[in-house]
């Protein structure tokens, strides 16, 4: 399967303190890829690099099989982009905004846009400056989905929206995805939101890709293990050790890539596994960030 988005050794620097380093993303065609990271980790910067809005200092970017930024017009013709902040012209009415947007996209589906507008309950003659944040969020989603894009790049599309609007927006997205084979690249710091919809996940922290793996592996592979008799020095392990804490005679390890047969490894080093606890996505996310900031020696 080919990749809808691929970056290699991508580097970008903004000011003295922020840098994207050696970013190698691989977003498979047809996947819903959750791009997770804390605020300020570089998610929006990465998206702007992918869409040719910023110029990298090194590395290559390929989107939908085309080079960025050489073929941006062709890439954007097949890409729906919802930016982090609203960017539509506020003096237009909703109808004017839809018509304006449609004029730039050959395959814009006006009937589908009308259908979504009715289901979202958006007022046609209202100026955008008079719409609520939730209505603007819905309008953004309406515009990009009616483009019938091959790739959707959504930068925190539900940030600041109330739960009802968030559900509406995500339902529309999932409905669209179920109709075809569009790839979705969605950034968020709302872990639970991505857990429901994504099949791949990439975690970015401080401009560096911490991990990129299928959501299922991410959800099932991160465990907290209580054990006794663990060695103080750890050599090669069949899993990735993220964290290690000692509480009395017990040790608590947080590991990634865990599978039940790996318990035998502990027996081999003289340790006894007392309990293996599943971590939910948010806990796993936090542990990944902790380990990337302070790796276990």
């Amino acid at each position: 399967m080919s990749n809808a988005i691929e970056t290699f050794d991508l580097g970008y620097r903004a000011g003295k303190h922020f840098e994207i380093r050696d970013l190698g993303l691989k977003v498979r065609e047809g996947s819903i890829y959750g791009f997770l990271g804390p605020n300020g980790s570089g998610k929006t910067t990465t998206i702007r690099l992918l869409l040719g809005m910023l110029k990298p200092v090194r590395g290559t970017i390929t989107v939908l099989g085309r080079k960025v930024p050489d073929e941006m017009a062709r890439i954007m013709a097949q890409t729906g982009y919802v930016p982090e902040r609203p960017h539509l012209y506020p003096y237009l009415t909703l109808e004017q905004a839809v018509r304006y947007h449609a004029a730039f996209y050959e395959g814009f589906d006006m009937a589908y846009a009308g259908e979504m507008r009715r289901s979202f309950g958006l007022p046609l003659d209202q100026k955008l400056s008079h719409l609520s944040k939730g209505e603007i969020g819905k309008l953004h989603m309406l515009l990009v989905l009616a483009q019938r894009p091959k790739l959707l790049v959504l930068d925190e599309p539900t940030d600041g929206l109330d739960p009802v609007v968030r559900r509406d927006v995500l339902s529309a997205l999932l409905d669209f995805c179920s109709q075809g084979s569009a790839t979705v690249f969605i950034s968020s710091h709302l872990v639970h939101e991505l857990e429901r919809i994504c099949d791949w996940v990439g975690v970015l922290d401080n401009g560096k890709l911490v991990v990129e793996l299928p959501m299922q592996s991410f959800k099932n592979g991160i465990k907290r293990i209580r054990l006794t008799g663990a060695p103080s020095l750890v050599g090669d392990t069949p899993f990735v050790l993220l964290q290690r804490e000692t509480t009395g005679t017990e040790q608590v390890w947080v590991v990634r890539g865990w599978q039940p047969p790996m318990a035998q490894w502990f027996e081999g080093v003289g340790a006894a596994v007392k309990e293996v606890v599943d971590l939910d996505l948010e806990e796993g996310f936090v542990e990944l960030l902790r380990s990337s900031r302070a790796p276990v020696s």
Partner: protein
Amino acid sequence: MYKQVLKAQWLAARLPVVLLAVLAFALPLLTVTSGSGLANAPVERVGQWLFAAQQVGVLIPGLALLAGLLLGIGAWAPDHAAKHVYALALPIPRSMFVLLRFAAGATLLAIPVVTLGVGAIVATLSVSLPDGVHAYPLQLTARFAMAALVCFAIFFAISIATKRAALATLGVICGVLLADAVLASLSIKDAASVTASVFYLLTNWPGPLSILMGRWALFDV
């Protein structure tokens, strides 16, 4: 595409465009307010009237400058407010979008140009000119159109720039003015004024603002 860009630009700039159109229509009419019964008037009165009409004519290049300024800056105002994200995400080359914005702005500029032309024709028809005095409504309109377009192009180009470029431009202007002030305070004889030199370069052919200079008369001998 062009139609939608034009419509959006019109919605953003309709108030200044209407204001410019009204002013453009009114200015030629102002030149004939004191022009009744000129056909058989003595030469001195005709001379006075022509002088007064030409004084009003001075306002026309000012209007061209104002039209260029308002529409040139106005063309990019909505994109500046959105940090150009929407424009950059559109599936057309950036040069194409710039061209669309320019074409739409230039089209809107046609509104005050046409109203100036209509005003000039109405003004011409409303006055009986003495022998030897001629009206130039079409020439005045064409010159106004050209001047407004030049000003629009200049302000359009300036306002498309990033904040950094705008600051650099401002810095250069401030530097020139400061250099002039320093030269003036040192009272150096024969020191050329930088501001005057720059002004001369801009307002004399082939300087871009040379079109604004000279006589702007609807009526002349």
